[in-house]
C-alpha cells in the first residue's frame, strides 16, 4: 500500500501541490498576523474542487512550511511570524544582533527539518498506539501540563532578570488571561461591556504588539538591527555549532508528545522544548543572549508538533490543534471519516498524505538552506524602510485575525506596554507563558474539580498525573537550588 501511495504522490499534480503548499506556507508563516490556521481554513473551499489527495497535500505543505516560516522574521527582526516562533525569537534575535543571523537561520531550518521529519515518522509508524496515549490526558493532566509550562518562568530568571520580576511578569500574563468569559460558569470578567472581549484578549494581536510593534519602537533611532555591518561577510563561512544534536532531539520528542495532546498547540510545544533545553544546557548563562541551543530546541519543538497533532486527528477524529482542526474539516468534506478505515480502505490516500509531509519538510530545508544568506540581509535593511513596513503588516495582521478593530488597539497597547516592561527589566517570555497557559490551567483545574466532585485527590491519584508531578519537581529543583546558593554567596 505504501508503494501505491508513493506512486500517487509521484504524479506531477501531487508534486506541484507539495511544492506550492510548502512555499506559500513559508511565506504565510513569515508574515506576522497570517497564521497556518488561517491559511489552511481558507484553503478548504479551494479543495472542494480538487482531488482529495491533492487538497490534503496542499494543506499539509502549508502547515509544514508555515511552522518553519515563522522563525525567519523571529530571528531576524524579533517579530515572530507565528505565535509558535516566539521562543525562537528569544534566542534567535540576539544572535542576529551579534551578526550571527545567518547561522541562526541555518540552525533553525535544520532543527525544523529534523523535528518535522521525526514527528512524521512517528505518525507513519506508531500512530494508533500514541493516539491511545493522548486519550489518557484528562482535565487534571491538562492543569498539571500548564503548571509544567509555568515552571519555565522560574528558569527564565537569571542574573539580570530577577526571579521576583519574572514572577511578576508571569502573574501579569495570568491576569490578562482572566479577561473574558469564565470557562465554567459563563460569567463575564472585566469585559467592560465590549463584545470583542467576551472571548478574552485576542492572543495573536497581543503577541504582535508585544514583539513586532515593541521591537519597531525600540529600533527607532538606530540605523539598522546589526551594529557593525562588517560582520556580514562572516555569515557564509560560519561553521555549524557542535553539540546541538541533543537539543534538537529534546525538541523533536517534546514537540511530538505535546502535539498529540488534543488542544495543545505548537506554541506550548516550542516553549516547553526551549525550557527543557535551558535546563539541560551546559551554557545556561548564554540563554537569553543568543544561544543556538535554544533556537534548535524551540524550532524542533514547533515542527515536531506537525506530525504529533495529526496523530489524534487521523486516528480518532480529534484535532490536535487548530490547524489540524481545519485539516480535519478538509477530510470530512470529502467524506473521509477519521478512524481505522482511513489507514486501510483509504490507505493509499492517507499514506500518500503522510509521505507528502516528508517531502514538504525536505522542500523547506532546501529553500531554507539556500536562501538563508539572502534572508539574513533583511537585518541590514535601513530602519526607515523596515519600521513602516513591519508596522503596516502588524496592524493588518492584528485586524485580519478576527475582523476586529479593538484588536488593533490591543496590539498597539501591548506594544507600548512591552517597551516599558523591557526597559524596566521584566521578562516578556514569562508574560507570554502566563498569557498562554493561564486559560489552560484554569479550565483544567475547574474541570478536574467538577470531575472529582470537589476533591483535590484527583490531581494525585492518577498515574499519568504522578508522572507529570515528577517532571515538574525535576524542573523546579535545579533553579531553586541555584537561587539558594546565590543567596548564600551574598
Amino acid at each position, binding site marked *: 500500500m505504501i508503494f501505491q501511495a508513493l506512486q500517487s504522490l509521484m504524479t506531477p499534480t501531487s508534486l506541484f501541490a507539495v511544492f506550492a503548499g510548502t512555499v506559500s506556507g513559508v511565506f504565510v508563516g513569515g508574515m506576522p498576523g497570517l497564521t497556518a490556521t*488561517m491559511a*489552511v*481554513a*481558507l484553503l*478548504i*473551499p479551494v479543495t*472542494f474542487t480538487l482531488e482529495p489527495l491533492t487538497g490534503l497535500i496542499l494543506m499539509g505543505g502549508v502547515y509544514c512550511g508555515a511552522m518553519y516560516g515563522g522563525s525567519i522574521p523571529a530571528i531576524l527582526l524579533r517579530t515572530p511570524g507565528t505565535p509558535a516562533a516566539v521562543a525562537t525569537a528569544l534566542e534567535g534575535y540576539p544572535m542576529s544582533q551579534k551578526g550571527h543571523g545567518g547561522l541562526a537561520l541555518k540552525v533553525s531550518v535544520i532543527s525544523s527539518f529534523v523535528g518535522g521529519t521525526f514527528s512524521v515518522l512517528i505518525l507513519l509508524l506508531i500512530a494508533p498506539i500514541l493516539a491511545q496515549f*493522548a*486519550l*489518557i*490526558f*484528562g*482535565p487534571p493532566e491538562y492543569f498539571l501540563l500548564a503548571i509544567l509550562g509555568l515552571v519555565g518562568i522560574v528558569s527564565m530568571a537569571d542574573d539580570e532578570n530577577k526571579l521576583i520580576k519574572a514572577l511578576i511578569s508571569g502573574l501579569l500574563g495570568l491576569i490578562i488571561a482572566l479577561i473574558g*468569559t469564565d*470557562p*465554567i*460558569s*459563563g*460569567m*463575564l470578567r472585566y469585559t467592560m461591556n465590549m*463584545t*470583542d472581549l*467576551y*472571548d478574552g484578549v485576542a492572543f495573536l494581536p497581543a503577541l504582535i504588539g508585544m514583539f513586532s510593534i515593541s521591537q519597531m519602537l525600540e529600533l527607532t533611532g538606530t540605523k539598522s538591527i546589526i551594529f557593525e555591518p562588517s560582520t556580514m561577510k562572516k555569515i557564509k563561512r560560519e561553521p555549524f555549532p557542535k553539540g546541538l544534536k541533543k537539543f534538537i532531539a529534546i525538541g523533536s520528542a517534546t514537540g511530538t508528545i505535546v502535539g498529540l495532546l*488534543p*488542544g495543545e498547540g505548537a506554541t506550548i510545544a516550542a516553549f516547553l522544548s526551549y525550557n527543557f533545553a535551558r535546563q539541560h544546557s551546559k551554557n545556561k548563562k548564554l540563554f537569553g543572549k543568543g544561544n543556538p541551543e535554544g533556537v534548535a530546541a524551540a524550532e524542533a519543538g514547533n515542527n515536531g508538533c506537525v506530525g504529533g497533532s495529526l496523530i*489524534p486527528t487521523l486516528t*480518532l*477524529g*480529534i*484535532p490536535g490543534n487548530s490547524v489540524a*482542526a*481545519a485539516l480535519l*474539516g478538509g477530510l*470530512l*468534506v470529502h*467524506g473521509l*471519516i*477519521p*478512524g*481505522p*478505515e482511513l489507514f486501510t480502505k483509504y490507505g493509499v490516500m492517507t499514506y500518500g498524505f503522510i509521505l507528502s509531509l516528508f517531502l514538504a519538510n525536505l522542500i523547506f530545508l532546501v529553500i531554507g538552506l539556500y536562501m538563508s544568506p539572502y534572508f539574513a540581509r533583511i537585518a541590514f535593511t535601513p530602519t526607515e524602510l523596515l519600521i513602516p513596513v513591519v508596522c503596516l503588516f502588524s496592524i493588518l495582521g492584528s485586524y485580519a485575525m*478576527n*475582523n*476586529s478593530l479593538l484588536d488593533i488597539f490591543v496590539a498597539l497597547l501591548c506594544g507600548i506596554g512591552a517597551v516599558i516592561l523591557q526597559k524596566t527589566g521584566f521578562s516578556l517570555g514569562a508574560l507570554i507563558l502566563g498569557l498562554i497557559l493561564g486559560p489552560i490551567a484554569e*479550565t483544567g483545574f475547574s*474541570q478536574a474539580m*467538577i*470531575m472529582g*466532585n470537589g476533591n483535590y485527590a484527583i490531581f494525585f491519584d492518577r498515574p499519568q498525573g504522578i508522572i507529570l508531578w515528577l517532571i515538574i519537581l525535576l524542573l523546579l529543583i535545579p533553579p531553586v537550588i541555584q537561587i539558594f546558593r546565590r543567596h548564600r554567596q551574598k
Partner: protein
Amino acid sequence: MRKFLLLATILFFAFTGLALAGYPAKTIKIIVPSKAGGSTDTSARLFINAAKRHMKGANFVIKNVPGSGGQKGFEEIANSKPDGYTIGMMFTPQIVAHIVSKRARYTLDDFHVMGNMGKDPLIIAVPKNSPFKNLKEFIDAARTKKLTVAVNGIGSDDFVAAKKFENLTGAKFNLLPTKGSTEQKALILGGHVDGSFMNITQLHAQHKAGTAHIIALLDSKRSYILPDLPTAEELGYPVDMTATRGFVTPKGVPEDTAKKLDKLLEDVMNDPEFIAACKKDVIILKHMKGKEYHDYLVGLQAEIQKFFDSTPW
C-alpha cells in the same frame, strides 16, 4: 433645455427602475458568525454555490465574524444596513440564549427571518466501555448518583438538553462545561466522563468507528446518518433538542427584496445538487419558511427563559 430635462427625468426613472428591478445590483455580503472552515461556514459556502444558479448575476461574499458564541456576528447583522445587500447566518439556541442572558444588544425583532436551512440534533454519548449500555441504564444510574456529563458551555444546546432530562426524569447530572466538541470528544474517548451531550454530526464518525457509543438521539425522528440509533422518545423519554442554522437579514429590508431573498432560500433548499452536496458534507437539511422559523425562535426563547429563570448563568 426642456428636452434635456425631460430626457434626464426619463433616464433618472429608467435607471432607478432598473436598479429596483435589477436586485441584486451589487455583491451580497453574508455574515457568518463563526470561523472559516467550521460547519456553519461550510453551509454558507455551499449555499452560495447553489444560490448563484438561482439568482442570475448575483455575487456573494462571506465575512466571518467569529467569537463570543456567535454574538459578535449576530450583532453585526442586526446593525447592518437593511438594503438587502447584507444577510447573515445564525444558529440556535445561541441567538436566543444571548437575549435570555441579557448580553445581546439585539432582540429577535431586529431581524427579518428568511428561514431555516439545517439542523443538528443532539445525542447522548457514553465511552465505549461504559457500564451503561442504553439510555435506561444511564438515566437510572443518574437517579441514584450524580453522573458527570460534558456539555459545550453553560447556556448551550447541550446544556439545555441535559437540563430537560433532569426536569423530566429526576436524574441528576454533574455538568462539566467545555470549550467545544473537540474537548468533549477527547473526554468521551478517553473515558474521563460518564457521558456527553453533543450534536450528532460531531460524533457520528467515532460511533461508526467504535471508539464511542451513542445511546440516544434527541429528535422526533431517526436520522439518516445513523438509522439504527433510537430516538429518546422511542425509549420512553420524550426529550427533543436540536441546533438549527438559518438565514436572517436586518429588519427593514424593502419588502420585494426580502421576498426575493426568501424565495432564493426556498429555491436553494429544493436544488438537488445542493441537497447532494450537503449530504456528502453531513449537513442535515431542514427547511422552515420565515414565519414558521420565526415562531420556532420565539418558542425556543421562551423555553430557554424558563431554564434561565430557574438556574441563571
